[in-house]
């Protein structure tokens, strides 16, 4: 259920931007989400459909692009990327050490919108 407050925030930002460029419609919203987030894309879309009803964003699609996380190895400080799968069992590519610190993976960004202008 935590997708709801996020979706409300996204809607507010997207509408602000769309209105500032005099858009008459919104086709698509592209998000970049760090893999550490437990987001269910179907829920985001469902909440989006609900919130956007009767606005220029009605019927638009929310696209989520997952962003890999960066881990710093706890032994040799090498930085490497992990995705949703390898995140639970990361291994340093240089020294093979299994423990490290997350440097990124927490992103929540709107990276683009596709708008319609009459």
């Amino acid at each position: 259920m935590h997708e709801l407050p996020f979706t409300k925030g996204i809607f507010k930002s997207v509408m602000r931007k769309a209105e500032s460029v005099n858009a008459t419609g919104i086709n698509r919203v592209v998000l970049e989400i760090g893999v550490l987030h437990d987001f269910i894309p179907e829920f985001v879309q469902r909440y989006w459909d609900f919130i956007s009803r009767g606005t220029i964003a009605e019927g638009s699609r929310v696209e989520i692009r997952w962003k890999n996380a960066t881990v710093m190895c706890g032994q040799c400080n090498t930085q490497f990327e992990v995705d949703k799968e390898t995140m639970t069992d990361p291994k340093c590519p240089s020294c093979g050490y299994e423990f490290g610190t997350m440097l990124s993976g927490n992103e929540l960004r709107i990276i683009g919108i596709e708008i319609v202008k009459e």
Partner: protein
Amino acid sequence: MDIEYIDLKECILAENEGDAQEVRDLLKEKNVILWNVMSSPGSGKTTFITDVIKRLGSQFRFGVIEADIESTVDAEKMHALGIPTVQLRTGGGCHLDAAMTMEALAKMPLDDLDVLIIENVGNLVCPAEFDVGANIATMLLSIPEGDDKCIKYPLMFTVTKAVFVTKMDVAPYFDFNFEALEKNSHRLNNDLRIFPVSVKTGEGMDEAVEWLKQQFN
């Protein structure tokens, strides 16, 4: 009709991050440390916090912000100890955000406090997503919940500095594997501290409280 794609770089939580900074600035000015306590429902947050206050109450002046979806049960317990308490009812909301923290700060006697504790809504997902402006974030994990929670809720285990493993007194009845918890949680948060504790028997509380004391100073 034109279709146009506009590149953006807008943080979805920009508003909350701004509010969190405001909370931090205000508390810095007032010299108050904000300690965020997160966990699942029923892991023993109120019991643990109460015990910490009893043990450190002569050295620090505490205040508590109680965040619950409904009810004022926890706030009443704190109030009975004579601790300044503000109850926030999220009314169905699954977490606390920085704006709500700010609201609670307005009702707190900040000039008379050293440490302000947030007892967050019992939930391992949402509270990890929202910066409330805290200086220290920790979590509780009770023995019956099991050691695999850090695999299921990775974000929570990367935003906390310490895990207090509570209800150690019932450990003989469960198969909680400390080695597995340590291994799995250190994969993404190598500096995470793990303190096995039981408020009931007092086990591990000296070490936990000593560590907290260092964080408050």
